[in-house]
């Protein structure tokens, strides 16, 4: 793999890691509130997938790092976490709701599994428009137990839609271990009758990148969807308010040994690594400052965005 790409992947993962550290710190300082689902540990999956896929992306609530590596600015994401007017969703969305149609990012659904049928619909639109790049939908292992997931794999297959299903299998849905509520520990089992399935090491950014590139090529052939299951591991609790008591320190130790940043780092030039670390710290510091300085949304605009400006004339 070429050096420039590896460096870009490393930079994005490191940026993601430090973004999440800063988010955590600012949560405890009271600058961020509500739900905060950190992606620490799962960066290889988020970055690898976002950098490799060409079409539109639908994600869950654990999407800061995906949004970042898709090309949303750290400033705008951090400002959103602060609930400020320069945030990606102008302070209306918060941590779980980041969207940018410009870059094909429909991130942040907080209803587990709720975005999967939406991705199916968008894939239909792309097929209709003859846009071969199609869509990618990212969801957790827990979401594969939702009714909407099963309906979606059937519809996407029967309609031969250009859609990559990417399951982030971190083996837990909040504190519930996958084996206790799912018929299988590998979720691909549920899909095998419908479409090709691929398993990838979700802690290896190069492997994820390659798998999603290939999956992206596959859906261009017009043969229908494909399912990628990335085995991964989150280093933190489900959300910031989860004390992570259901995982033993042993399990956590094993999990952290798989740190995707440590895996890639030895393959890179030392001078580059030092330079990029300094760069990331500067980027994140700037994002936090930007978020602090951005104003609060105006109360006079409470109704804004519910409808179009034209629609609002009727609604008020």
């Amino acid at each position, binding site marked *: 793999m070429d050096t420039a790409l590896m460096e870009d992947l490393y930079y994005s993962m490191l940026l993601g890691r430090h973004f999440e550290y800063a988010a955590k710190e600012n949560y405890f300082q009271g600058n961020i509130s509500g739900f905060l689902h950190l992606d620490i540990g799962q960066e290889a999956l988020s970055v690898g997938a976002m950098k490799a896929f060409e079409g539109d992306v639908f994600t869950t609530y654990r999407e800061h790092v995906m949004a970042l590596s898709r090309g949303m600015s750290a400033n705008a994401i951090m400002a959103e976490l602060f609930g400020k007017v320069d945030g990606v969703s102008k302070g209306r969305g918060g941590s779980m709701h980041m969207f940018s149609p410009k870059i094909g990012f429909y991130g942040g659904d907080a209803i587990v599994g709720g975005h999967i049928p939406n991705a199916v619909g968008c894939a239909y639109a792309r097929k209709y428009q003859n846009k071969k790049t199609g869509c990618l939908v990212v969801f957790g292992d827990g979401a594969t137990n939702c*009714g909407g997931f099963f309906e979606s794999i059937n519809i996407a297959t029967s309609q031969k839609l250009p859609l990559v299903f990417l399951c982030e299998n971190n083996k837990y849905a909040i504190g519930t271990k996958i084996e206790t509520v799912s018929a299988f520990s590998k979720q691909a089992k549920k899909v095998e009758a419908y479409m090709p399935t691929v398993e990838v090491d979700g802690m290896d950014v190069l492997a994820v990148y390659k798998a999603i590139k290939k999956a992206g090529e596959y859906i261009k052939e017009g043969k229908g969807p494909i399912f990628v299951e990335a085995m991964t591991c989150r280093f933190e609790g489900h959300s910031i308010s989860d004390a992570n008591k*259901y995982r033993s320190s042993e399990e956590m130790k094993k999990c952290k040994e798989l740190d995707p940043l440590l895996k890639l780092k030895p393959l890179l030039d030392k001078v580059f690594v030092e330079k990029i670390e300094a760069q990331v710290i500067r980027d994140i510091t700037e994002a936090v400052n930007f978020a602090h300085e951005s104003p609060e*949304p105006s109360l006079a605009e*409470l109704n804004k965005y519910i409808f179009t400006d034209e629609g609002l004339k009727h609604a008020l």
Partner: protein
Amino acid sequence: MLYREAINLALDETMSEDTNIVLLGEDIANVGGTFRVTEGLLDKYGKARVIDTPIAELSIVGNAIGMAIGGLRPVVELMTANFSLLAFDQIVNHMAKLPFMSAGKIRLPMVLRMPQGVSKQLGAQHSENYENMLSSVPGLFVFAVNSPNYAYHALKKSIKMDDPVIFIEHELLYNKKEEIDMKSDLDPFKARIIKEGEDITIISYLKMLDDTASALDEIEKELNCSCELIDLCSLNPVDFKTLEASIKKTGRLIMIEEGHKMGSYGAQIISWAVEELFYFLDAAPLRLCGKNVPIAYNRKLELASIPTPKSIKKDIINWGRINGL
């Protein structure tokens, strides 16, 4: 005792008396519930009676209905009311209608617990109130739980009832503290008069009741009047008798709730009062609700979208002045 402990105790005591009672929901067994309501029950009753389910709300409620048909007495925890939407077909078409459609041959002794409401900056998909929709469905009893004492007694009675019950909690009430009167024979269908008064009847429930109570002193001082504050408790059926007696005494009615104003629950209480008690009313009733907007993440927008102690006080005082108080 805390609100969540009171619910836990009610579950524990009924479960120890009746082995047909089973609990099901997401993260309720191993983790003990998102709001720690079911803590300790897995250890005590085992995983055949305290069941961790997948994220499949339609099936959770659907399965509970089947369990009830099969002779068990399920108590479901939906993690929040926001996810009850996924189960609405089971709630409306099955839970509420099977007893009627079967001419009573099927009975559904089951309880659906769910917390709702605006908590703190949880965003638009995690901040809703659905008591208006749930109360509009014939065939369901709907209780709104404001206090630990009511929680304890009403839940025990709900579990023992042979009819389906929706048991609505509020996300911000789980740490509310209150002494529980173990000897009380509380009737869950009866409204509670929190404070007696002569001039205004104020009806509310869930968290808005507490927000109103905290503003009451200043309102009474400012308007030089006395308010009667009522916790509605049972949203369907409604204890109209208690409300009627109060309104006939005061001649003035205020209804306060957190949900959006369009289609709000309280609209039907106001409507009933206007239809039935028109000549006893000395003023047009006041209805304080959330605005017709999704709830934003930003704290200021969030608070501007729902009644707060401050806005309740201001709105009631303005209304009182206009209406000659």
